[in-house]
């Protein structure tokens, strides 16, 4: 028995399982309260109170909402493709969850795994996220849902390009695809005259950061890019026919994507866990930066109107893509110049 516990493979598996359990449940908690915060912030931005009836300050509202979702009637259209109809909501959640496995939330014990293609895993999972929406829209056998699904697949495929290209500047600077290495490369403090500021890539790659955040909004189908579910024209877009917890899974997947993409943005551009104080405070810094970005997502949603479809495509292909390419060229020249004098 003791020999079994000393087995390094088993120990690694056990600790990985513990970390996955903690992160999965932690993230589910964050999602439910992110929805609460979104409603509260939206309320205050529109001079309302937001949810304030269930529990003190309305804090029990998410629990009530999820409980209600579980007990709703589940409706499946008669002509729907049953298997794919069931598969689509699961596909909405799983890729977003897989991304969390490579995100360094803090120094050593807060990292599930550090693979040397962590950033590529994130891009791969975000590209697989398209399937949930496309398939959900197609399988419900509903014109509105189908149009929403087609729109979103076009939107996400176009914005993925600009997103992938915007991260290349960071890869060039950090000289690695591992997210842990990228954070390590940002821990230095730079002196510019009397001012000391952290070596985060948001200062050296501001254009890439801007492009990444815009494409992040588009990839997660958040306003002002929420055309796939434009309620004014498509009822509810791809999830028109979904009810009960299947709708809940789409909702969960959207917010999971928002959180995972914000985590990646913190890691790539805002220095990850680095911050003043000892390294053990890393997780606190990470969570603070993450909260700031999540607030930014909510803020944008309640500030800007929705784009028209041709504006969306124009922005993606004719503005963001060339800018991202130009950023790569400039960064590559800079890196070459720094290395070779």
């Amino acid at each position, binding site marked *: 028995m003791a020999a079994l516990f000393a087995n390094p*493979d088993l120990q690694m598996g056990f600790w990985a399982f513990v970390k996955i359990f903690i992160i999965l449940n932690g993230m589910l908690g964050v999602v439910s309260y992110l929805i609460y915060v979104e409603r509260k912030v939206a309320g205050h931005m529109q001079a309302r109170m937001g949810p304030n009836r269930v529990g003190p300050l309305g804090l029990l509202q998410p629990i009530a909402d999820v409980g209600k979702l579980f007990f709703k009637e589940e409706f499946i259209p008669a002509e729907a*493709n049953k*298997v*794919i109809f069931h598969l689509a909501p699961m596909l909405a959640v799983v890729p977003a969850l897989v991304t969390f496995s490579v995100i360094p939330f803090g120094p050593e014990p807060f990292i599930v795994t550090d*693979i*040397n*293609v962590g950033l*590529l*895993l994130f*891009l*791969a999972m975000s*590209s*697989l996220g*398209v*399937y949930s929406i*496309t*398939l959900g829209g*197609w399988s419900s056998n509903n014109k509105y849902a*189908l149009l929403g*699904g*087609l729109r979103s*697949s*076009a939107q*996400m*495929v176009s914005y*993925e390009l600009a997103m*992938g290209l915007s991260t290349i500047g960071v890869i060039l600077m950090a000289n690695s*695809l591992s997210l842990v290495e990228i954070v390590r490369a940002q821990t230095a403090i730079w002196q510019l005259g009397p001012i000391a500021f952290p070596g985060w890539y948001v200062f050296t790659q501001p254009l890439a950061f801007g492009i990444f955040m815009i494409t992040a909004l588009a990839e997660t189908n958040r306003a002002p890019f929420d055309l796939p579910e434009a309620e004014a024209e498509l009822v509810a877009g791809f999830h028109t026919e979904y009810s009960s917890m299947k709708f809940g899974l789409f909702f969960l997947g959207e917010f999971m994507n928002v959180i995972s993409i914000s985590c990646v943005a913190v890691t790539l551009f805002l220095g990850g866990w680095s911050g003043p104080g000892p390294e053990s405070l890393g997780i606190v810094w990470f969570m603070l930066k993450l909260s700031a970005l999540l607030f930014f997502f909510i803020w944008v949603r309640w500030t800007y109107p929705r784009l028209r479809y041709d504006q969306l495509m124009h922005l993606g292909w004719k503005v963001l893509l060339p800018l991202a390419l130009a950023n790569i060229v400039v960064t590559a020249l800079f890196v070459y110049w720094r290395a070779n004098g």
Partner: protein
Amino acid sequence: MTEALFVGMGTAALISSLLVILHRNPVTSALFLVVAFCSLAGIYLLLHAEFVGMVQIIVYAGAIMVLFLFVIMYLNLKSDVETGIQIALRRGIGWLVGGVIGAEALWLFAKEWGVGPIVPELPGLRDPNTMAIGKLLYTQYLFPFEITSLILLAAMVGVIVVGKGRAQRPVHPAKPGPPPPRVAPPAAGLPAAPDPEAS
């Protein structure tokens, strides 16, 4: 452990590739192709080719298959069950070609068949995988790499030309030019409206 994973992913790749061609519903076929690509990516990971594995998912499963699905959904919204002489003809040709290729494969296997190790020995890599591929691409294989990009660029330009159409139409063909004046021509002081046909 590695062997078990390899056998599992290999089986998944085989079964899903078979289902791609055996399933009647085109959308389901496309989805099984995605599964096949993902299992292939898993096999690449087992061979310590992380970069190729991830790019396999990003490019094939994430981009190309989404466009496939897009086209299938756009063109053909019902499950496509073909009958009659068409499918018999297609089946016959399929069996013929498949039989020839299968016989060739059998002949090759019979000629030199050897069971190697399931998990191949890894070449000693000094650099990380991504760096090694990058170095190879920009030194030894620079010329083929640039030729490939040129071919892709040519394809892109070709698509744009075909998509735009050959005729020299105005940008907004739906919008007709200004209607001819029905009343008397404009007063002498105003410049005449430009003739849309002149350009």
